[in-house]
């Protein structure tokens, strides 16, 4: 009796449930699949963005793959990815763990930490640019020599600054993820560890960190795949400069497409970005094991 009702309900769900995915599917096809197909088609053409689109086979691909500028942009993108991941992950885990505590002062601090999350990248970039201006910025205004360096005018400094600002902007978001994850860890584990005489540090490394494994993978995926699309912040902050010291792939794509009117080569970069993004996301899922959604509590 009971099995038959479940069966019936199940069939009803199967009829109705797929429709729930329809709105998302429409958006996904409209704003992800169609543009990607369009960009792939454009990468085999020559187009200045204004005149007629001329099919040109592999010309754009050949031109781009032999362009040292592309390799450089890939290298810079990779460096930004690694550096911002390496800065953000430890700090986010520590902050998230700290904020997971239920003390009231931590709640107040949490609100303060999350402020950068509310600001738009463009606003952040304009603010930092103004504050760090070597002639009219904070350093010159307060007479602090350390601050009045040519932050955005030297390749290494500008690169480090981009990583710093990116981290400043996104650490709150990842801390939020870690805070939630840490709160999910059963209190009983810590109580058991305390009985066994484990100190704070030991508890962190032996319980918190292993329990956060899947959260680390999720947050790293967001960071790494997200870093491929850094554009607005870098565009406003440095425009890819000085020279091409911070010209990441997304920026290179924009400059070629919309400033140099080379839509073909820009589409090649877009295709490369899509492929790299998908490959990285897949790789990270593999790292997390076959089923990242399984519970890990028992395994601890």
């Amino acid at each position, binding site marked *: 009796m009971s099995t038959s009702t479940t069966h019936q309900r199940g069939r009803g769900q199967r009829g109705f449930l797929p429709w729930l995915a329809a709105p998302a599917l429409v958006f996904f096809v409209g704003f992800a699949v*169609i543009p990607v197909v369009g960009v792939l088609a454009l990468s085999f053409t020559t187009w200045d963005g204004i*005149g007629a689109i001329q099919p040109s086979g592999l010309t754009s691909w050949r031109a781009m793959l032999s362009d040292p500028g592309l390799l450089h942009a890939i290298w810079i993108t990779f460096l930004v990815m690694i550096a911002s991941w390496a800065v953000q992950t430890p700090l986010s885990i520590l902050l998230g763990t700290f904020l997971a505590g239920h003390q009231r002062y931590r709640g107040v601090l949490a609100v303060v930490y999350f402020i950068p999350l509310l600001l738009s990248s463009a606003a952040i970039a304009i603010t930092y640019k103004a504050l760090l201006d*070597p002639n009219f910025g904070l350093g010159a205004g307060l007479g602090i020599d350390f601050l009045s360096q040519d932050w955005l*005018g030297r390749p290494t400094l500008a690169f480090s600054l981009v990583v710093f600002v990116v981290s400043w902007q996104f650490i709150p978001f990842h801390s939020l993820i870690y805070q939630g994850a840490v709160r999910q860890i059963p209190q009983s584990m810590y109580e058991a560890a305390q009985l066994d005489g484990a100190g704070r540090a030991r508890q962190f490394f032996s319980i918190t960190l292993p329990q956060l494994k899947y959260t680390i993978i999720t947050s790293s995926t967001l960071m790494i795949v997200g870093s491929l699309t850094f554009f607005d912040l870098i565009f406003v902050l440095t425009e890819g400069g000085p020279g091409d010291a911070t010209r990441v792939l997304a920026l290179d794509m924009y400059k070629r497409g919309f400033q140099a009117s080379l839509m073909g080569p820009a589409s090649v970069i877009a295709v490369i970005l899509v492929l790299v993004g998908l490959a990285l996301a897949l790789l990270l899922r593999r790292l997390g094991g076959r089923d990242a959604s399984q519970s890990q509590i028992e395994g601890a």
Partner: protein
Amino acid sequence: MALAACGSSGPGSSSGGATYWFLNGQPQEGVRTGAVDRFNKANPNEKITFTTFQNDAYKTKIKTAIGAGQAPTIIWGWGGGTLRTYAKAGQVEDLTSWFDQNSKVKDKLFPSTFGAATIDGKIYAMPCETFQPIVLYYNKKVFSDVGVQPPQSWGDIMDLVPKFNAKGIAPFSLGGQSRWTNMMWLEFLFDRIGGSEVFQAVFDGEKDAWSNPAAIDALTKVQDLVKAKGFIEGFSSITADSNADQALLYTGKAAMMLHGSWSYGIQQSDGGDFVSSGSLGYMNFPPVDGGKGDPSDTVGNPAQYLSISSKASDDQKKIAKDFFTKGVLDDEEVKQWIGTGGVPILKGTQDLLAKDKNADFLTFTYDIASKAKTFAQSWDQALTPTPAETLLDNIVKLFQLSISPQQFADNMNAVIGQ
């Protein structure tokens, strides 16, 4: 492609009158909006709505809008290479016959301004607004504090550099992140060393034109100036859109600056009493010893240009043409441009210029513009977008000292004629 049609219904398709996009930033923005407002008031049946943009953002926005078929009726621009791409794609109206029928409109303007509006013998834009030659500005107060005289030659410039640096003043202000600001230096050095034919050869698509010995000499000289700390510390992160480069000059942190004539109006409105107290000096770029160029030559924008989108409706085109006849450079607009320190491209304004409070600067600009043997158009505007972008990128690297003059020439030779 279908993608282009994804946006909301753009200004190109709106039926309520003509649309007009142009640059913001005072004092020029006020003159432009004033002209539109007066036209709208005088012609209640013909309405022009305008939208304003920042300089660097506009250059991208307008190209994208035109490519997507969403161009405004009236397209504000700089003529030259970009206009050529619009014309080749059939996106802007051929105005040749209209100018023939309305010769009065054409004849009141300086003929030299039509060069950058003419593509293969046809006129695709109406010249408007002001002459904008590039001028060497200097802070007279700083010069007298240090006890030196304005440079009369390239040699003088190189001699002045250590003197200002010794006093902790930057010899030259430069908004290097904007890139075209660096380009102005090369434009003058190329001209003064080898004459206007050096860049003309590039423009005409001659093979290896950038390898001309005069070009290599000019590229080397500019790197010498960078190496001698001729430009303000941190110039590669300063943008011209923020006017910070000009602030460096009027606050006395820098002694000199190469900039467009429009900068006079900006320094006047932002610089307190800097301009009114007579502290701002200006001159044409000095000759280079032994150079072949004519010292009267100048570079910059011979005018600004208004084109009509070929996608506009007949009504919109008619409104635009009426605006060209009745609105553009009407008496009030002429007066206002003069008030901002700009010299309108209209013939016979000498008397008006001489009566203004900025008479000295205005007469100076008028003389440069009208007496120059060659008034060359800014390179990035003269070239089509693809080589222009390569040029700007390589100029930045040249100023960063990350490529040699020879590498610069090689990189640029590769895109000649594109």
